[in-house]
């Protein structure tokens, strides 16, 4: 029970208990020194995402939060000043679809329905992929189960405080997300074992059956609770079932549903099933054919997390076009870009830059796809994803326009603390001094790590 109900909030509570009980000796890497209470990044070109780009601006950070932004910010005289003359400043980049730091544990490909898998149980915080992403300006990632299963596992949301402990890297109080999949991967994984599903018909029927099972489970608990409420001392509690509890939480609307889905017809089927069972789809991931039905999906409020220009690697990616993101956006869909890759996560800014080429996005629209809209998909857009007063001070200083080919992340702050500085010798990390793991490159991909 607690395994499901806790999600990552529970783990933070656990950490708090340990911290109260004694020194946090379980923590592997300890941050040296506290970040300054006040930090002022001055003279920068600040791309706020929500209220335009401001030249010669200051970003004032106070106790890990953004306390002021603009050309007339009164940061205190005691503030540590970073002169960013000629530099660009953006919010930290957010990747709403990653399998980094999960090693070979991306897919529990032994059943098409595995909703009680908790990705946090596989999270390896010393994976070099996190470091390399940090050096690319990435400060928040949604680490998802793979796409072997129609209903996969529950995601973990991290802040890329590379060098800190597993618990310290969790995004505090982030909503719970669960990964669903559809299309070729589930049918291939199970079909070649001559198991259900081996077709799209089978795929969706497996899902419907799972929700029927969950409804029956919920009904049995409702009946039991009704009896208890009526004073029935003979009532026998139904057996707790981790898998059905998780599905029940989907039906109760307690989890964001993130669906791996490529084809236009499947977006429509998924939305119809969600409507039938009364849950909401948060986002379609990959979503390479959204441009075909964006006008129909837009009213549902479902977003997408898509590739900039990937195509043709499989049949269901054959109709992918690089104009998908911008066309879908113009059709009214909330669009984010994502990596699904330990490689592309390092240069999501360039992937966003391509949106200017393919469809003529503005710089702000393009940047929003890898910041605020990505944050919305994860459900943390009230905390990160733009440079606004009150938000977490997750900030990147770039040498050049971040949407150009020539941009390098020079300094990356998370919660106002400097985690990466390219001017430092060695790795450029400020908190990491240990030995990195290689949690796996090939396995960290929906397409490769599907249980083959």
């Amino acid at each position, binding site marked *: 029970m607690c395994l499901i109900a806790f999600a990552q909030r529970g783990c933070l509570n656990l950490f708090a208990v340990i911290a109260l009980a004694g020194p946090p000796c379980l923590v592997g890497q300890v941050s040296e020194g506290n970040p300054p209470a006040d930090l002022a990044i001055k003279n920068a070109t600040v791309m706020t995402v929500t209220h335009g780009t401001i030249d010669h601006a200051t970003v004032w950070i106070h106790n890990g939060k953004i306390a002021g932004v603009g050309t007339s910010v009164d940061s205190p005289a005691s503030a540590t000043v970073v002169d960013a003359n000629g530099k660009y400043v953006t919010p930290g980049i957010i990747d709403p679809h990653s399998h980094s730091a999960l090693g070979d544990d991306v897919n529990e490909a032994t059943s098409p329905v595995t909703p009680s898998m908790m990705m946090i149980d596989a999270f390896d915080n010393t994976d070099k992929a996190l470091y390399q992403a940090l050096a690319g300006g990435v400060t928040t990632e949604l680490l998802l189960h793979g796409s072997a299963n129609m209903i996969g596992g529950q995601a973990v949301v991290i802040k890329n405080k590379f060098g800190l402990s597993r618990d310290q890297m969790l995004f505090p109080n982030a909503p719970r997300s669960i990964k669903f999949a559809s299309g070729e991967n589930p049918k291939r994984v199970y079909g070649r074992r001559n198991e259900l599903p081996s077709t799209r018909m089978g795929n969706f029927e497996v899902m419907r059956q799972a929700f029927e099972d969950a409804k029956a489970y919920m009904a049995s608990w409702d009946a039991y609770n009704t009896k208890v409420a009526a004073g029935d001392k003979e009532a026998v509690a139904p057996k707790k079932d981790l898998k059905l509890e998780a599905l029940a939480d989907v039906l109760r609307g307690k989890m964001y549903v993130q669906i791996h889905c490529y084809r236009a017809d499947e977006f429509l089927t998924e939305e119809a099933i969600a409507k039938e069972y009364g849950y909401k789809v948060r986002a379609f991931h990959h979503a390479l054919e959204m441009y075909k039905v964006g006008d129909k999906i837009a009213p549902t409020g479902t977003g997408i997390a898509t590739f900039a220009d990937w*195509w043709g690697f499989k049949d269901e990616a054959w109709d992918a076009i690089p104009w998908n993101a911008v066309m879908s956006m113009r059709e009214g869909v909330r669009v984010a870009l994502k990596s699904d890759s330990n490689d592309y996560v390092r240069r999501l800014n360039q992937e966003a830059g391509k949106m200017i080429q393919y469809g003529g996005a503005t710089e702000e629209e393009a940047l929003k796809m890898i910041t605020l809209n990505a944050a919305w998909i994860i459900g943390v857009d009230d905390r990160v994803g733009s440079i606004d007063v009150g938000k977490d001070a997750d900030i990147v200083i770039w040498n050049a326009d971040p949407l150009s080919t020539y941009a390098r992340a020079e300094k990356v702050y998370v919660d106002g603390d400097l985690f990466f500085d390219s001017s430092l010798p060695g790795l450029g990390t400020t908190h990491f001094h240990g030995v990195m793991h290689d949690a796996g490159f090939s396995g960290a991909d929906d397409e490769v790590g599907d249980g083959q």
Partner: protein
Amino acid sequence: MNQRVTLAGFLWLCFSLSQTSLAQTGPNNTDTTPAGTIAIIGGKLLTITHGTIENGVVVMSAGKIIAVGPAASTNVPKDAHIFDAKGMTVYPGLFDAETRLGLTEVEADANSNDLIETSDEIMPHMHVADAFHAESVRIPVARLNGITNAIVAPASEDSIAGQDAAIQLYGRDRDAMLIRRDIALAMNFDGSVRRKGSDDGSSKFPTTRMGLASQIRQAFLDAQSYEAEMQAAAKPDHKGNPPKRDLKLEALLPYLKGEKPVVLGATEGYEVEVAMEIAKEFKLKVILNHVTHAQNILDEIASYHVPVIVGPIYDAPLPSERYDAVYSLPAELQKRGVKIAFSSLGGSGDNRNLPYAAGYSVAYGLPYDEALKAITLNPAEMFGFGDSLGSLDVGKTANVVIANGDPLDVRTSVKQVFINGEAIPMVSRQTQLRDQYMPLTDNKKN
């Protein structure tokens, strides 16, 4: 009178061409009439060989560049179609030093793949020209981003994978697009060639790098013996039947004689060293390829005096390496005088992203002009096209690109591509899908 076409009129031009030949709107050219004279005026020319010319003119006729220079001193023929490239950048078509174009369509669909024979590691008698699918949907997608020439190579899972072909990315059929067959021998020396742990099991030789190296040496020794045998049999006093022709060993002979280059793939420093030892033993003419994790032997690589196609700069650094160890490799090699080229392999392997790898290397220290050269003139020279491709020079094949900005920047859109002096239709299966569904976007805007 000049027929003047502004950039806004490009679509109109394509339309007018399509009236003369309907198939012009599709990806393949079935029009056999030669292109007329075309002049691109007003653009910023990146010539590669003689600097940048603001407000320059390029004139193309009969498939060749016939004039390049500043507007003030370059004559525009009266009968020329004019492309007004004011505010635009004009540069030579890009040359991708290694692709799988025409060997694969949908990667996950085995039936569409002719990438590599894995039944044996020594396959020099495989000719990619025999499998090259000129009508691949991928070719128009790549050329719309300014890629006009490419090397097509088999995948790299064999020690000797086969013989590459050079292609032009436009033409009516494979004969027109294959500009040189069997241009180079594709060789590889890295761990991925080993059949360890594969479905075949591990009992078949070779399962180690020692095995791979000895197998390569034996293949070249066998070819040398074969040649000696053939030469002996060719003598007038030879008695008996001539030996049976061996296609496999025969295929190695031009490379043993140094007549053509061997494209030698090796990823890590020690692999490069072993591969180069073998190459020296047999006096092979080498282009190093896939060099990625060789930061420890940069000076040694420079001392080989061979050109290098750098490995994917997007390859992940090793856990012990700084995040930019691979990004900066092209700059480190170029600094040491090595002639470098990029290929589009790595990343998603999408050919159209070739210029962005070069641009990213600029962010990590490679001089801009060298980056541009590494996707134009350098690969052209490496493969023997220095006189015909890779720069805006009189006499060269008229492969020219007009874009609305810096070709290495991800934000730049290519507006028109010319191949063999022809304004190609800016149409691919992807633009067709875009245009088919664009009304949904337009309706929303209204």
